[in-house]
Protein backbone atom coordinates (compact mmCIF):
# COMPACT_ATOMS: atom_id res chain seq x y z
CA UNK A 1 0.00 0.00 0.00
CA UNK A 2 2.77 2.34 0.94
CA UNK A 3 6.30 2.34 -0.26
CA UNK A 4 8.78 4.87 1.05
CA UNK A 5 12.29 5.11 -0.39
CA UNK A 6 14.85 7.31 1.34
CA UNK A 7 12.22 9.80 2.35
CA UNK A 8 13.52 12.87 4.13
CA UNK A 9 11.77 15.80 5.68
CA UNK A 10 13.68 18.91 6.51
CA UNK A 11 12.16 21.97 8.20
CA UNK A 12 13.60 25.44 7.73
CA UNK A 13 16.73 24.00 6.14
CA UNK A 14 17.86 23.12 9.60
CA UNK A 15 15.87 20.48 11.36
CA UNK A 16 15.80 17.03 9.87
CA UNK A 17 12.66 15.45 11.19
CA UNK A 18 12.71 12.35 9.03
CA UNK A 19 16.01 10.95 7.82
CA UNK A 20 16.20 8.62 4.83
CA UNK A 21 13.28 6.47 5.83
CA UNK A 22 12.53 3.24 4.02
CA UNK A 23 9.21 1.57 4.64
CA UNK A 24 6.91 -0.94 3.01
CA UNK A 25 3.34 -1.49 4.11
CA UNK A 26 1.00 -3.99 2.52
CA UNK A 27 -2.72 -3.50 2.13
CA UNK A 28 -4.65 -4.63 5.14
CA UNK A 29 -1.67 -4.65 7.49
CA UNK A 30 -1.86 -3.43 11.05
CA UNK A 31 1.17 -1.70 12.45
CA UNK A 32 2.16 0.37 15.43
CA UNK A 33 4.85 3.03 15.58
CA UNK A 34 6.55 3.70 18.88
CA UNK A 35 9.38 5.92 19.92
CA UNK A 36 10.26 8.94 22.04
CA UNK A 37 8.63 12.34 21.49
CA UNK A 38 10.19 14.28 18.70
CA UNK A 39 11.24 11.10 16.91
CA UNK A 40 9.42 12.16 13.78
CA UNK A 41 6.33 9.97 14.12
CA UNK A 42 3.88 12.79 13.58
CA UNK A 43 5.91 14.21 10.71
CA UNK A 44 5.94 10.80 9.08
CA UNK A 45 2.17 10.54 9.41
CA UNK A 46 1.65 13.99 7.98
CA UNK A 47 3.59 12.90 4.95
CA UNK A 48 1.67 9.64 4.74
CA UNK A 49 -1.69 11.41 4.75
CA UNK A 50 -0.45 13.89 2.17
CA UNK A 51 -0.60 16.92 4.41
CA UNK A 52 2.99 17.98 3.94
CA UNK A 53 5.33 17.22 1.07
CA UNK A 54 8.56 15.30 1.66
CA UNK A 55 11.80 17.13 1.07
CA UNK A 56 13.36 14.33 -0.92
CA UNK A 57 12.88 10.65 -1.58
CA UNK A 58 9.94 8.79 -3.12
CA UNK A 59 6.62 8.09 -1.52
CA UNK A 60 4.33 5.70 -3.36
CA UNK A 61 0.74 5.15 -2.29
CA UNK A 62 -0.88 2.18 -3.95
CA UNK A 63 1.70 2.52 -6.69
CA UNK A 64 1.06 6.22 -7.23
CA UNK A 65 3.87 8.72 -6.88
CA UNK A 66 2.19 11.22 -4.66
CA UNK A 67 4.72 13.97 -5.23
CA UNK A 68 3.20 14.69 -8.62
CA UNK A 69 -0.33 14.96 -7.33
CA UNK A 70 -2.05 18.29 -7.23
CA UNK A 71 -5.56 19.72 -7.02
CA UNK A 72 -8.39 17.34 -7.70
CA UNK A 73 -6.22 14.25 -8.04
CA UNK A 74 -4.58 15.02 -4.73
CA UNK A 75 -7.93 15.33 -3.02
CA UNK A 76 -9.12 12.05 -4.47
CA UNK A 77 -6.12 10.28 -3.00
CA UNK A 78 -6.54 12.05 0.32
CA UNK A 79 -10.05 10.69 0.48
CA UNK A 80 -8.65 7.21 0.54
CA UNK A 81 -6.62 7.92 3.65
CA UNK A 82 -8.37 8.59 6.94
CA UNK A 83 -6.70 10.21 9.92
CA UNK A 84 -7.52 10.20 13.60
CA UNK A 85 -5.62 12.88 15.53
CA UNK A 86 -4.46 13.13 19.09
CA UNK A 87 -6.36 16.38 19.50
CA UNK A 88 -9.33 15.00 17.59
CA UNK A 89 -9.49 18.28 15.61
CA UNK A 90 -13.23 18.60 15.55
CA UNK A 91 -15.05 21.90 15.13
CA UNK A 92 -16.34 22.70 18.61
CA UNK A 93 -19.31 24.89 17.81
CA UNK A 94 -20.86 22.54 15.30
CA UNK A 95 -23.32 19.83 16.32
CA UNK A 96 -21.87 16.32 16.27
CA UNK A 97 -23.76 15.40 13.11
CA UNK A 98 -21.92 17.99 11.04
CA UNK A 99 -18.56 16.99 12.40
CA UNK A 100 -19.24 13.36 11.56
CA UNK A 101 -20.57 14.16 8.10
CA UNK A 102 -17.54 16.34 7.37
CA UNK A 103 -15.81 13.07 6.62
CA UNK A 104 -17.81 13.11 3.41
CA UNK A 105 -16.52 16.46 2.26
CA UNK A 106 -14.00 14.80 0.02
CA UNK A 107 -16.85 13.14 -1.87
CA UNK A 108 -19.44 15.89 -1.86
CA UNK A 109 -19.65 18.74 -4.35
CA UNK A 110 -19.69 22.15 -2.74
CA UNK A 111 -23.40 22.74 -3.09
CA UNK A 112 -24.07 19.51 -1.26
CA UNK A 113 -21.77 20.55 1.53
CA UNK A 114 -23.63 23.84 1.89
CA UNK A 115 -27.01 22.15 1.84
CA UNK A 116 -25.93 19.75 4.50
CA UNK A 117 -24.88 22.57 6.78
CA UNK A 118 -28.40 23.91 6.61
CA UNK A 119 -30.10 20.56 7.02
CA UNK A 120 -27.93 17.43 7.38
CA UNK A 121 -28.48 15.41 4.23
CA UNK A 122 -27.21 12.04 5.45
CA UNK A 123 -28.03 12.08 9.12
CA UNK A 124 -28.73 8.36 8.99
CA UNK A 125 -25.20 7.64 7.91
CA UNK A 126 -23.85 9.74 10.74
CA UNK A 127 -26.12 7.97 13.17
CA UNK A 128 -24.90 4.58 12.05
CA UNK A 129 -21.29 5.65 12.41
CA UNK A 130 -21.93 6.98 15.89
CA UNK A 131 -23.64 3.75 16.78
CA UNK A 132 -20.53 1.86 15.79
CA UNK A 133 -18.42 3.94 18.11
CA UNK A 134 -20.95 3.68 20.88
CA UNK A 135 -22.48 7.14 21.22
CA UNK A 136 -25.45 7.32 18.85
CA UNK A 137 -27.57 9.46 21.17
CA UNK A 138 -25.18 12.40 20.80
CA UNK A 139 -26.11 13.01 17.19
CA UNK A 140 -27.41 16.55 17.59
CA UNK A 141 -25.46 17.68 20.63
CA UNK A 142 -22.96 20.47 20.28
CA UNK A 143 -19.57 18.87 19.96
CA UNK A 144 -17.91 20.93 22.64
CA UNK A 145 -20.30 19.59 25.26
CA UNK A 146 -18.90 16.08 24.92
CA UNK A 147 -16.09 14.66 27.02
CA UNK A 148 -12.61 14.13 25.58
CA UNK A 149 -13.10 10.43 25.09
CA UNK A 150 -16.47 10.97 23.45
CA UNK A 151 -15.06 13.59 21.12
CA UNK A 152 -12.38 11.16 20.05
CA UNK A 153 -15.11 8.70 19.22
CA UNK A 154 -16.82 11.37 17.13
CA UNK A 155 -13.53 11.81 15.29
CA UNK A 156 -13.45 8.08 14.66
CA UNK A 157 -17.05 8.23 13.42
CA UNK A 158 -15.97 10.97 11.01
CA UNK A 159 -13.30 8.66 9.72
CA UNK A 160 -15.84 5.87 9.32
CA UNK A 161 -18.10 8.07 7.25
CA UNK A 162 -15.16 8.93 5.04
CA UNK A 163 -14.67 5.18 4.57
CA UNK A 164 -10.99 5.28 3.61
CA UNK A 165 -8.72 2.39 2.62
CA UNK A 166 -6.07 3.35 5.14
CA UNK A 167 -6.49 4.51 8.72
CA UNK A 168 -3.70 6.59 10.22
CA UNK A 169 -4.10 7.17 13.93
CA UNK A 170 -1.63 9.67 15.36
CA UNK A 171 -1.48 9.03 19.11
CA UNK A 172 -5.26 8.70 19.25
CA UNK A 173 -5.35 7.90 22.94
CA UNK A 174 -2.70 10.21 24.37
CA UNK A 175 -5.28 12.85 25.28
CA UNK A 176 -7.78 10.32 26.55
CA UNK A 177 -8.34 8.89 30.00
CA UNK A 178 -5.93 5.89 30.25
CA UNK A 179 -8.76 3.64 31.39
CA UNK A 180 -10.49 4.24 28.06
CA UNK A 181 -7.36 4.06 25.94
CA UNK A 182 -7.33 0.34 25.39
CA UNK A 183 -10.99 0.47 24.45
CA UNK A 184 -10.39 3.00 21.71
CA UNK A 185 -7.38 1.15 20.35
CA UNK A 186 -9.40 -2.05 20.21
CA UNK A 187 -12.29 -0.20 18.55
CA UNK A 188 -10.00 1.07 15.80
CA UNK A 189 -8.57 -2.38 15.27
CA UNK A 190 -12.03 -3.96 15.09
CA UNK A 191 -13.27 -1.37 12.63
CA UNK A 192 -10.26 -1.80 10.39
CA UNK A 193 -10.50 -5.57 10.58
CA UNK A 194 -14.16 -5.65 9.54
CA UNK A 195 -13.45 -3.85 6.27
CA UNK A 196 -9.87 -4.93 5.59
CA UNK A 197 -8.46 -1.47 5.96
CA UNK A 198 -4.79 -0.85 6.52
CA UNK A 199 -4.22 0.52 10.02
CA UNK A 200 -1.16 2.44 11.14
CA UNK A 201 -1.04 3.84 14.63
CA UNK A 202 1.39 6.04 16.53
CA UNK A 203 1.46 5.09 20.16
CA UNK A 204 3.11 6.52 23.18
CA UNK A 205 2.40 3.44 25.24
CA UNK A 206 4.66 0.55 24.33
CA UNK A 207 2.35 -1.87 26.14
CA UNK A 208 -0.63 -1.00 24.00
CA UNK A 209 1.46 -1.40 20.89
CA UNK A 210 2.87 -4.77 21.83
CA UNK A 211 -0.49 -6.03 23.05
CA UNK A 212 -2.56 -5.28 19.98
CA UNK A 213 -0.42 -5.12 16.87
CA UNK A 214 1.32 -7.84 14.85
CA UNK A 215 4.07 -5.53 13.61
CA UNK A 216 5.89 -2.84 15.53
CA UNK A 217 8.23 -0.16 14.20
CA UNK A 218 10.49 1.88 16.45
CA UNK A 219 11.31 5.41 15.37
CA UNK A 220 14.10 7.50 16.80
CA UNK A 221 15.59 10.73 15.53
CA UNK A 222 13.78 10.38 12.26
CA UNK A 223 15.18 6.97 11.52
CA UNK A 224 13.72 3.51 11.88
CA UNK A 225 15.36 1.85 14.85
CA UNK A 226 13.69 -1.52 14.30
CA UNK A 227 10.91 -2.97 12.19
CA UNK A 228 9.89 -6.43 13.33
CA UNK A 229 6.92 -8.64 14.07
CA UNK A 230 5.80 -8.09 17.63
CA UNK A 231 6.98 -11.48 18.81
CA UNK A 232 10.55 -10.54 17.94
CA UNK A 233 10.67 -7.29 19.85
CA UNK A 234 13.38 -7.56 22.51
CA UNK A 235 14.30 -5.51 25.52
CA UNK A 236 17.44 -4.45 23.70
CA UNK A 237 15.30 -3.00 20.95
CA UNK A 238 13.32 -0.96 23.44
CA UNK A 239 16.37 0.12 25.40
CA UNK A 240 18.08 1.38 22.26
CA UNK A 241 14.90 3.17 21.27
CA UNK A 242 14.38 5.06 24.48
CA UNK A 243 18.03 5.38 25.55
CA UNK A 244 18.74 8.52 27.51
CA UNK A 245 15.10 9.56 27.50
CA UNK A 246 13.89 9.12 31.03
CA UNK A 247 11.22 11.75 31.30
CA UNK A 248 8.76 13.25 28.85
CA UNK A 249 10.57 16.52 28.86
CA UNK A 250 13.91 14.76 28.79
CA UNK A 251 12.78 12.91 25.72
CA UNK A 252 11.85 16.09 23.91
CA UNK A 253 15.06 17.87 24.76
CA UNK A 254 17.40 14.96 24.19
CA UNK A 255 16.06 13.86 20.85
CA UNK A 256 15.78 17.42 19.55
CA UNK A 257 19.33 18.14 20.55
CA UNK A 258 20.48 15.13 18.68
CA UNK A 259 19.15 16.32 15.39
CA UNK A 260 21.90 15.87 12.93
CA UNK A 261 22.63 18.74 10.57
CA UNK A 262 21.27 18.28 7.08
CA UNK A 263 23.77 16.58 4.82
CA UNK A 264 22.19 13.97 2.67
CA UNK A 265 18.83 15.53 1.91
CA UNK A 266 18.64 18.02 -0.91
CA UNK A 267 15.30 19.84 -0.97
CA UNK A 268 14.81 19.83 -4.71
CA UNK A 269 15.35 16.13 -5.17
CA UNK A 270 11.75 15.07 -5.12
CA UNK A 271 11.55 12.27 -7.64
Amino acid sequence: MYQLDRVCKVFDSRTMAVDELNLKVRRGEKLAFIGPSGAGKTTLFRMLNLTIPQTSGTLLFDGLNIARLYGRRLREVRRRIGTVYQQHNLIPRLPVVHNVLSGKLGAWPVWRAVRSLIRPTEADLAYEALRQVGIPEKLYDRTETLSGGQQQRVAIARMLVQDPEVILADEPVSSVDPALAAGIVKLLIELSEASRKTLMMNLHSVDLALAHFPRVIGLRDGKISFDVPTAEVTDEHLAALYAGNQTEAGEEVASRAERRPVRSCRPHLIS
Partner: protein
Amino acid sequence: MQSDAPSAPADLILSARRSPYFPVVFSVLFLLTFLGSYRLAQVQPLLLVEAEGRRNIWKFVSGMFPPDLSWNFLSLLGRPILETIQISLMGTFMAVAIGFPLGLLATSSLTFKGILNERETAGSRPRALLRRGSYLLARAVLSLFRTIPEFVWAFMFVRAVGLGPFPGVLAIGISYAGMLGKVYSEILEHVNPGPLEALQATGASKLAIILYGLMPQALPNVVSYTLYRWECAVRASAILGFVGAGGIGQQLEISMRMFNFNQVFTLVAILFVMVAGVDALSARARRAILGRQRV
Protein backbone atom coordinates in the same frame (compact mmCIF):
# COMPACT_ATOMS: atom_id res chain seq x y z
CA MET B 1 6.28 20.51 15.00
CA GLN B 2 9.44 22.28 14.07
CA SER B 3 11.32 24.31 16.64
CA ASP B 4 12.85 27.58 15.55
CA ALA B 5 16.18 28.90 16.70
CA PRO B 6 15.19 31.01 19.67
CA SER B 7 16.04 34.14 21.49
CA ALA B 8 18.58 36.19 19.56
CA PRO B 9 16.11 38.68 18.07
CA ALA B 10 14.01 38.69 21.24
CA ASP B 11 16.98 39.82 23.26
CA LEU B 12 17.56 42.73 20.95
CA ILE B 13 13.98 43.89 21.20
CA LEU B 14 14.02 43.66 24.94
CA SER B 15 17.06 45.84 25.25
CA ALA B 16 15.72 48.36 22.76
CA ARG B 17 12.63 48.69 24.91
CA ARG B 18 14.64 49.68 27.89
CA SER B 19 16.86 52.06 25.98
CA PRO B 20 17.47 55.09 28.19
CA TYR B 21 17.39 57.32 25.17
CA PHE B 22 13.84 56.62 24.20
CA PRO B 23 12.06 58.91 26.70
CA VAL B 24 14.39 61.78 25.90
CA VAL B 25 14.15 61.36 22.15
CA PHE B 26 10.42 60.98 22.40
CA SER B 27 9.96 64.10 24.50
CA VAL B 28 12.12 66.18 22.23
CA LEU B 29 10.30 65.00 19.13
CA PHE B 30 7.00 65.57 20.82
CA LEU B 31 7.89 69.13 21.74
CA LEU B 32 9.14 69.92 18.28
CA THR B 33 6.02 68.46 16.71
CA PHE B 34 3.89 70.46 19.07
CA LEU B 35 5.59 73.74 18.26
CA GLY B 36 5.61 73.03 14.56
CA SER B 37 1.96 72.12 14.57
CA TYR B 38 1.09 75.20 16.55
CA ARG B 39 2.54 77.36 13.80
CA LEU B 40 1.13 75.29 10.96
CA ALA B 41 -2.37 75.12 12.34
CA GLN B 42 -2.32 78.88 12.83
CA VAL B 43 -3.50 78.51 16.35
CA GLN B 44 -4.79 81.80 17.66
CA PRO B 45 -6.72 81.13 20.81
CA LEU B 46 -7.44 84.81 21.16
CA LEU B 47 -9.79 84.66 18.22
CA LEU B 48 -12.19 82.71 20.36
CA VAL B 49 -12.47 85.34 22.99
CA GLU B 50 -12.37 88.33 20.70
CA ALA B 51 -15.48 90.33 20.28
CA GLU B 52 -16.26 89.10 16.80
CA GLY B 53 -15.69 85.48 17.65
CA ARG B 54 -17.86 85.69 20.72
CA ARG B 55 -20.60 87.45 18.84
CA ASN B 56 -20.65 84.77 16.20
CA ILE B 57 -20.71 81.94 18.67
CA TRP B 58 -23.52 83.63 20.53
CA LYS B 59 -25.43 84.16 17.30
CA PHE B 60 -25.10 80.49 16.64
CA VAL B 61 -26.09 79.27 20.06
CA SER B 62 -29.02 81.61 20.40
CA GLY B 63 -30.12 80.80 16.90
CA MET B 64 -30.54 77.18 17.84
CA PHE B 65 -33.33 77.81 20.30
CA PRO B 66 -36.10 77.19 19.94
CA PRO B 67 -35.46 74.21 17.65
CA ASP B 68 -37.51 74.06 14.50
CA LEU B 69 -40.20 71.53 15.20
CA SER B 70 -42.66 72.79 12.66
CA TRP B 71 -44.51 70.17 10.75
CA ASN B 72 -43.36 71.94 7.60
CA PHE B 73 -39.84 71.02 8.37
CA LEU B 74 -40.31 67.69 10.03
CA SER B 75 -42.37 66.32 7.20
CA LEU B 76 -39.39 66.90 4.95
CA LEU B 77 -37.24 64.69 7.04
CA GLY B 78 -39.03 61.37 6.91
CA ARG B 79 -37.56 60.31 3.61
CA PRO B 80 -33.97 61.45 4.32
CA ILE B 81 -33.92 59.63 7.62
CA LEU B 82 -34.98 56.38 6.01
CA GLU B 83 -32.55 57.04 3.23
CA THR B 84 -29.68 57.41 5.67
CA ILE B 85 -30.50 54.04 7.18
CA GLN B 86 -30.81 52.49 3.75
CA ILE B 87 -27.46 53.88 2.68
CA SER B 88 -25.81 52.50 5.77
CA LEU B 89 -27.38 49.07 5.26
CA MET B 90 -26.68 48.77 1.57
CA GLY B 91 -23.22 50.18 2.08
CA THR B 92 -22.47 47.60 4.72
CA PHE B 93 -23.81 44.78 2.55
CA MET B 94 -21.62 45.90 -0.28
CA ALA B 95 -18.66 46.23 2.05
CA VAL B 96 -19.11 42.65 3.22
CA ALA B 97 -19.54 41.39 -0.32
CA ILE B 98 -16.27 43.00 -1.37
CA GLY B 99 -14.40 42.83 1.89
CA PHE B 100 -14.96 39.18 2.69
CA PRO B 101 -13.41 37.64 -0.45
CA LEU B 102 -10.56 40.12 -0.28
CA GLY B 103 -10.15 39.33 3.39
CA LEU B 104 -9.87 35.63 2.57
CA LEU B 105 -7.15 36.35 0.05
CA ALA B 106 -5.40 38.61 2.48
CA THR B 107 -5.10 35.82 5.03
CA SER B 108 -1.66 34.38 4.61
CA SER B 109 -2.56 31.05 6.19
CA LEU B 110 -5.22 30.57 3.53
CA THR B 111 -3.42 31.85 0.49
CA PHE B 112 0.19 30.89 0.51
CA LYS B 113 1.50 29.85 3.90
CA GLY B 114 0.86 26.95 6.18
CA ILE B 115 -0.32 23.43 5.65
CA LEU B 116 -3.29 24.42 3.58
CA ASN B 117 -0.95 25.52 0.85
CA GLU B 118 2.34 23.78 1.33
CA ARG B 119 1.64 20.80 -0.89
CA GLU B 120 0.07 22.85 -3.62
CA THR B 121 3.02 25.12 -4.00
CA ALA B 122 5.89 22.84 -3.09
CA GLY B 123 6.49 21.53 -6.56
CA SER B 124 5.75 24.59 -8.56
CA ARG B 125 7.43 27.95 -8.27
CA PRO B 126 4.99 29.86 -10.48
CA ARG B 127 2.07 28.62 -8.41
CA ALA B 128 3.76 29.76 -5.23
CA LEU B 129 4.46 33.17 -6.73
CA LEU B 130 0.90 33.51 -7.94
CA ARG B 131 -0.41 32.77 -4.48
CA ARG B 132 1.92 35.16 -2.81
CA GLY B 133 1.17 37.76 -5.40
CA SER B 134 -2.57 37.52 -4.86
CA TYR B 135 -2.04 37.87 -1.14
CA LEU B 136 0.01 41.02 -1.55
CA LEU B 137 -2.40 42.44 -4.09
CA ALA B 138 -5.37 41.82 -1.81
CA ARG B 139 -3.58 43.54 1.06
CA ALA B 140 -2.67 46.51 -1.09
CA VAL B 141 -6.20 46.92 -2.39
CA LEU B 142 -7.68 46.72 1.10
CA SER B 143 -5.16 49.26 2.31
CA LEU B 144 -6.04 51.63 -0.50
CA PHE B 145 -9.76 51.26 0.16
CA ARG B 146 -9.59 52.02 3.82
CA THR B 147 -6.92 54.69 3.82
CA ILE B 148 -8.82 57.13 1.66
CA PRO B 149 -11.56 58.60 3.83
CA GLU B 150 -15.09 57.64 2.79
CA PHE B 151 -15.80 61.31 2.40
CA VAL B 152 -13.28 61.53 -0.42
CA TRP B 153 -14.67 58.41 -2.04
CA ALA B 154 -18.11 59.95 -1.74
CA PHE B 155 -17.49 63.08 -3.66
CA MET B 156 -15.50 61.23 -6.29
CA PHE B 157 -18.46 58.96 -6.80
CA VAL B 158 -20.83 61.89 -6.82
CA ARG B 159 -18.73 63.39 -9.60
CA ALA B 160 -18.77 60.10 -11.42
CA VAL B 161 -22.35 58.88 -11.14
CA GLY B 162 -24.28 61.94 -10.00
CA LEU B 163 -26.06 63.02 -6.84
CA GLY B 164 -28.28 60.88 -4.67
CA PRO B 165 -27.89 57.93 -2.33
CA PHE B 166 -26.13 55.66 -4.84
CA PRO B 167 -22.70 57.31 -4.60
CA GLY B 168 -23.05 57.28 -0.84
CA VAL B 169 -23.54 53.54 -0.87
CA LEU B 170 -20.56 53.09 -3.14
CA ALA B 171 -18.39 55.24 -0.93
CA ILE B 172 -19.25 53.33 2.21
CA GLY B 173 -19.10 50.02 0.38
CA ILE B 174 -15.57 50.60 -0.82
CA SER B 175 -14.00 52.21 2.20
CA TYR B 176 -15.64 49.88 4.69
CA ALA B 177 -14.68 46.91 2.57
CA GLY B 178 -11.11 47.90 3.30
CA MET B 179 -11.71 48.01 7.03
CA LEU B 180 -13.79 44.85 7.18
CA GLY B 181 -11.36 42.94 4.97
CA LYS B 182 -8.43 43.78 7.19
CA VAL B 183 -10.18 42.77 10.40
CA TYR B 184 -11.64 39.64 8.81
CA SER B 185 -8.18 38.53 7.76
CA GLU B 186 -6.93 39.04 11.29
CA ILE B 187 -9.78 36.97 12.71
CA LEU B 188 -9.26 34.22 10.15
CA GLU B 189 -5.54 34.15 10.74
CA HIS B 190 -6.10 33.30 14.40
CA VAL B 191 -8.48 30.43 13.91
CA ASN B 192 -7.51 27.05 15.34
CA PRO B 193 -5.65 25.27 12.52
CA GLY B 194 -6.11 21.70 13.81
CA PRO B 195 -9.65 21.12 12.47
CA LEU B 196 -8.59 22.63 9.15
CA GLU B 197 -5.78 20.14 8.84
CA ALA B 198 -8.19 17.32 9.65
CA LEU B 199 -10.68 18.44 7.02
CA GLN B 200 -7.96 18.76 4.42
CA ALA B 201 -6.85 15.21 5.17
CA THR B 202 -10.28 13.86 4.30
CA GLY B 203 -9.89 15.27 0.82
CA ALA B 204 -12.09 18.32 1.24
CA SER B 205 -11.61 21.19 -1.19
CA LYS B 206 -10.43 24.58 0.04
CA LEU B 207 -13.95 25.92 -0.19
CA ALA B 208 -15.34 23.08 1.92
CA ILE B 209 -12.59 23.61 4.48
CA ILE B 210 -13.48 27.28 4.72
CA LEU B 211 -17.17 26.47 5.05
CA TYR B 212 -16.95 23.73 7.66
CA GLY B 213 -13.77 24.52 9.47
CA LEU B 214 -13.16 28.25 9.25
CA MET B 215 -16.57 29.87 9.30
CA PRO B 216 -18.03 28.18 12.38
CA GLN B 217 -14.99 29.23 14.34
CA ALA B 218 -14.78 32.76 13.02
CA LEU B 219 -18.46 33.60 12.69
CA PRO B 220 -19.18 35.20 16.08
CA ASN B 221 -16.30 37.61 15.81
CA VAL B 222 -17.00 38.34 12.17
CA VAL B 223 -20.64 39.14 12.78
CA SER B 224 -19.87 41.17 15.87
CA TYR B 225 -17.39 43.39 14.09
CA THR B 226 -19.65 43.77 11.08
CA LEU B 227 -22.46 44.99 13.31
CA TYR B 228 -20.11 47.46 14.90
CA ARG B 229 -19.14 48.70 11.46
CA TRP B 230 -22.78 49.16 10.60
CA GLU B 231 -23.13 51.49 13.56
CA CYS B 232 -20.26 53.57 12.21
CA ALA B 233 -21.84 53.41 8.77
CA VAL B 234 -25.00 55.07 10.03
CA ARG B 235 -23.03 58.00 11.36
CA ALA B 236 -20.97 58.17 8.21
CA SER B 237 -24.04 58.06 5.96
CA ALA B 238 -25.49 61.01 7.76
CA ILE B 239 -22.41 63.06 7.02
CA LEU B 240 -21.94 61.97 3.43
CA GLY B 241 -25.04 63.92 2.58
CA PHE B 242 -22.87 66.99 2.80
CA VAL B 243 -21.40 66.20 -0.55
CA GLY B 244 -24.72 65.31 -2.04
CA ALA B 245 -24.73 61.63 -1.29
CA GLY B 246 -28.21 61.52 0.13
CA GLY B 247 -29.68 61.18 3.59
CA ILE B 248 -30.16 63.82 6.23
CA GLY B 249 -26.64 65.13 5.70
CA GLN B 250 -27.91 66.88 2.65
CA GLN B 251 -30.57 68.70 4.64
CA LEU B 252 -28.00 69.49 7.32
CA GLU B 253 -25.81 71.17 4.77
CA ILE B 254 -28.68 73.22 3.42
CA SER B 255 -29.76 74.36 6.84
CA MET B 256 -26.25 75.38 7.78
CA ARG B 257 -25.74 77.30 4.58
CA MET B 258 -29.00 79.14 5.14
CA PHE B 259 -28.02 79.83 8.74
CA ASN B 260 -31.19 78.11 9.93
CA PHE B 261 -29.64 77.08 13.19
CA ASN B 262 -32.89 76.03 14.74
CA GLN B 263 -33.20 73.48 11.97
CA VAL B 264 -29.64 72.39 12.56
CA PHE B 265 -30.49 71.69 16.15
CA THR B 266 -33.44 69.54 15.22
CA LEU B 267 -31.37 67.62 12.73
CA VAL B 268 -28.58 66.99 15.18
CA ALA B 269 -31.11 65.84 17.74
CA ILE B 270 -32.61 63.45 15.24
CA LEU B 271 -29.16 62.19 14.37
CA PHE B 272 -28.51 61.60 18.03
CA VAL B 273 -31.64 59.54 18.44
CA MET B 274 -30.86 57.54 15.31
CA VAL B 275 -27.34 56.75 16.39
CA ALA B 276 -28.46 55.86 19.91
CA GLY B 277 -31.09 53.55 18.50
CA VAL B 278 -28.67 51.83 16.18
CA ASP B 279 -26.14 51.60 19.01
CA ALA B 280 -28.61 49.82 21.25
CA LEU B 281 -29.84 47.50 18.50
CA SER B 282 -26.37 46.51 17.46
CA ALA B 283 -25.28 45.95 21.05
CA ARG B 284 -28.27 43.68 21.67
CA ALA B 285 -27.59 41.74 18.49
CA ARG B 286 -23.93 41.37 19.31
CA ARG B 287 -24.70 40.11 22.78
CA ALA B 288 -27.15 37.62 21.40
CA ILE B 289 -24.71 36.31 18.83
CA LEU B 290 -21.67 36.07 21.01
CA GLY B 291 -23.61 34.59 23.87
CA ARG B 292 -25.94 32.32 22.03
CA GLN B 293 -25.12 28.82 20.87
CA ARG B 294 -25.80 28.17 17.26
CA VAL B 295 -24.19 26.87 14.08
